[in-house]
């Protein structure tokens, strides 16, 4: 982004119709997009802020979230090479998976992006949405807001109205991208970050895309509001990883929705470790026969964090398969919510759908895991199951390990790593796994409090 003068209205707190207009103008967007934004803003204003009385927000109190307190936009300097990125971001990159394309969103703007020449030659596009509008306007016009529309909820409406930065990944028909593609969202101001991610994987193509959120430590609250739209074409494969590792001043809202065509496969992994409050909706639309969605999730809440996941396996077409496994650990006074639904639409015969949520509580009586697995089946020839468990680390398991000479703390580590291993072992990304292991290690820290007898 050129360092044009940021309009005054974007430099003061709060979001308004003027902000939305100024933002669109500032970015030189086509008229249709300005209109969509304004329309979404009207929707946002119409929708009430969710409260504990809303079924989908029953356990997650957001009455303290004041969107009007945040700066709507924060610019960041363009950089010419990776070496000029903030040091913390360079560290993230060096610890991350090897990548064939990279994008860094710094606050509200994309400050750096690169696509390996070989991929670019094959027609792979990976850039921020605003730049993409120049060369790929048609496809963006067709797909943007298609899966996370303004009417989805209050936060989706806000995203559609006021998004900035974000990324567009396009993998042409039949192209197999072997090395993962990576984006980082880096926040180092008190303000807001509202990326939108649009991924289009054409028929027979395959790609792994990792989206990571991290920030500089700060006192004052910051606001993150994302929308991720994943289109997977016929026979195509997409592995999508969302790794939320914000500092504790951030309030995070994100909706990730996918659509899979015939014989397409999507493997998603949603990891929530950071933020003070984190709400993620993950929805897989199984819209064609032979489509397959693996949905993995892991979260680890400490202190008074609130980590909330709502999932939907939406079986619209017959003969599709979905398999969800979300695992969470809690310590201290944290709260986690898992609410999952398998919905089998009328006519979606031969659906094969599984859903499992497991939580372990580490040595405290003050943490609380809400687990709400649900089925809504409107077809009769289906195989569906769901399950949920929540409990303390099993004392007998610990005793077994300790009886082999392993000290308690080490035994607890093994059990927790083992617990998450069921998820991480299903993700073939070595450096990512190492990163997750380090994060778990950090969360376990100096061991748990004495558990209640």
């Amino acid at each position, binding site marked *: 982004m050129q360092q044009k003068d940021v309009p005054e209205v974007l430099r003061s707190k709060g979001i308004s119709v003027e902000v939305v207009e100024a933002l669109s103008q500032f970015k030189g967007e086509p008229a249709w997009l300005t209109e969509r934004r304004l329309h979404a803003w009207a929707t946002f204003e119409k929708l009430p802020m969710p409260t504990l009385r809303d079924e989908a927000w029953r356990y997650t109190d957001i009455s303290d979230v004041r969107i009007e307190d945040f700066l709507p936009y924060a610019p960041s300097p363009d950089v010419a090479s990776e070496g000029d990125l903030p040091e913390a971001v360079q560290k993230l990159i060096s610890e991350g998976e090897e990548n064939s394309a990279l994008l860094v969103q710094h606050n509200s703007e994309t400050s750096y992006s690169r696509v390996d020449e070989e991929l670019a030659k094959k027609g792979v596009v990976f850039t921020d949405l605003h730049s993409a509008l120049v060369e790929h306007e048609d496809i963006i016009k067709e797909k943007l807001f298609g899966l996370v529309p303004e009417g989805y909820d209050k936060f989706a409406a806000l995203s559609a109205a006021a998004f900035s930065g974000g990324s567009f990944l396009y993998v042409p028909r039949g192209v197999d991208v072997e090395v993962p593609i990576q984006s980082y969202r880096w926040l180092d101001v008190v303000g807001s970050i509202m990326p939108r991610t649009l991924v289009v994987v054409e028929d027979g193509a395959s790609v792994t895309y990792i989206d990571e959120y991290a920030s500089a430590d700060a006192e004052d609250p910051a606001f993150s509001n994302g929308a991720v739209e994943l289109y997977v074409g016929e026979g195509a494969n997409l592995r999508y990883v969302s790794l939320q590792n914000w500092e504790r001043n951030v309030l995070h809202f994100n909706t990730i929705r996918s659509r899979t065509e015939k014989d397409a496969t999507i493997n998603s992994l949603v990891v929530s470790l950071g933020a003070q409050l984190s709400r993620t909706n993950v929805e897989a639309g199984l819209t064609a026969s032979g489509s397959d969605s693996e949905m993995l999730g892991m979260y680890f809440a400490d202190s008074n964090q609130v980590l909330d996941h709502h999932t939907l396996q939406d079986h619209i077409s017959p003969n599709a398969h979905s398999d969800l496994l979300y695992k969470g650990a809690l310590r201290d006074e944290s709260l986690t919510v898992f609410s999952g639904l398998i919905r089998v639409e009328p006519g979606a015969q031969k659906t094969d759908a599984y859903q499992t949520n497991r939580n372990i509580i580490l040595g405290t009586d003050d943490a609380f895991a809400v687990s709400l697995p649900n089925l809504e089946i409107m077809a009769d020839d289906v195989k569906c199951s769901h399950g949920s468990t929540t409990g303390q680390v*099993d*004392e*007998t*398991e610990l*005793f*077994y*390990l*300790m*009886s*082999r*000479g*392993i*000290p*308690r703390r*080490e*035994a607890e580590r*093994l*059990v927790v*790593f*083992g*617990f*998450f*291993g*069921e998820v991480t*072992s299903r993700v073939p990304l070595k450096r990512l796994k190492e990163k997750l292991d380090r994060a778990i290690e950090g969360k376990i820290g100096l061991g748990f409090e004495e558990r209640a007898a």
Partner: protein
Amino acid sequence: MLKIDNLQAEIDGNEILKGLELEVGKGEIHAIMGPNGSGKSTLSNVLMGHPRYEVTGGSVTFLGEDVMEMEADERARLGMFLAFQYPSEVPGVSVANFLRTAVNAVREEELSIMEMYRLLQDKMKIMQMDPKFAERYLNEGFSGGEKKRNEILQMLMLEPKLSIMDETDSGLDIDALQVVSKGVNELRGPEFSAVIITHYQRILRYIEPDRVHVMLDGRIVTSGGKELALELEDKGYDWVRQEFGSAA
């Protein structure tokens, strides 16, 4: 080596061990037999330091040290081992990873990755276990017999000075019984003692005990040589109850 004196223990307020006496010398193999519910597994767990049991009286010393105040891992590092009647499943923790952690915890010096690998290969061979088991999650989905083999594999890896085997022979087919016995005999020597808890005299044909004890209602009520096992199998526990029940 192991000295149990007037041991009393309870679980959830129910008294199970009611003044148990047992002494096992260095290099000795002892067998304990007794009807279901007589407290054999309770004894094993109490000896190993299971936190659910409360010791209400008596003492246990191992190698001259009072172990009752020790956590399970300390007892293990001192050289005690328990082959569980019902080993726990620990999802997500591979046998190899678990054994590496355990062996390094028990040994004074850490083994290199290569040494560890060789040791494990070696011991798995003795136990006739498929090397693939090393990568499987600890006991998860193992058959009954596989779990028992895995217990003895752990014993071979850790080389304890005293091994308590709680019905390791139950649920084993004839071949597996021989393999497990071979595993135990592998360690047999002047530095290794064992307490074999069993319902059958069968395993004692492969691992000859120095002493046989009969447990009834939380106590050892009679002891003898290996012929006592045969006699028991012949006459059943009713005989023991009649002879020694009054003492209980």
